[in-house]
């Protein structure tokens, strides 16, 4: 399996650049086994961080929006124990390495399960749910 098709990271950066401003690639790496992208950008008054790693096991992502040092919303699929507990309850520890798509809200005081998300899904969500006037409590995953 080829983890990232040729040009994948370039197309991802191009996609983000079309929809967000002040895009800065913080870290980028690619080889035949895996590809990494970590970038920061702006969406109106919000700061955005997009992190992705692609390898033979699939895609790990973290798409975060923050403002004045507080996290407005963060989508990721890490095997976070909070998300594992939400999904599996008392059986959570048996699933400890499973990737669980979820989101964090209200400066990470609230966690909800979500569907798997791509970077494009995240950008769509951003445009549909956040405007410069949005408040932290008004955000729903």
């Amino acid at each position, binding site marked *: 399996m080829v983890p990232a098709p040729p040009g994948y990271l370039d197309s991802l950066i191009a996609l983000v650049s079309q929809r967000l401003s002040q895009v800065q690639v913080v870290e980028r790496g690619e080889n035949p086994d895996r590809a990494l992208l970590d970038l920061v950008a702006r969406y109106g008054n919000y700061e955005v961080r997009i992190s992705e790693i692609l390898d033979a096991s699939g895609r790990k992502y*973290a798409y*975060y929006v923050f403002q004045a*040092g507080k996290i407005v919303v963060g989508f990721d699929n890490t*095997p*976070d124990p909070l998300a594992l507990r939400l999904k599996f309850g008392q059986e959570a520890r048996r699933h400890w390495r499973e990737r669980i798509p979820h989101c964090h809200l209200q400066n990470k005081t609230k966690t909800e399960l979500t569907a798997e998300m791509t970077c494009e899904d995240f950008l769509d969500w951003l445009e549909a749910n956040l405007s410069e006037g949005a408040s932290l409590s008004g955000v729903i995953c």
Partner: protein
Amino acid sequence: MGDVRVKDAYLEVFRPFGDVQGVVDSALQHYAIEKANEKIAALRRKIKVWEDKYGCTYEVFAYRTARDEEYVQELNHNPQTAMWEGDLIVWEFQARELAEWYQRLQDILIA
């Protein structure tokens, strides 16, 4: 084993030393070791930033963030570490790269 073309000017320098293939292999080994060490040093510098920030190795961090809910809550509540998920992604890539470069270096040294 692959075929590589070597410029005549270099071959003229190598020939007086005898076994041209051996000399080329030795030169390439020195160069490969130098490049591998450069790559390893660069990766170690990047990884040290994460190790200093989180006070542990990648393996420990990946384990704790997957197993220890209390630790994750601490990370989430600290503004400096609240976006640990993105850090974990970058750190994982660098840690795996570093392991592979150590392996390549070892392979070169025993070749």
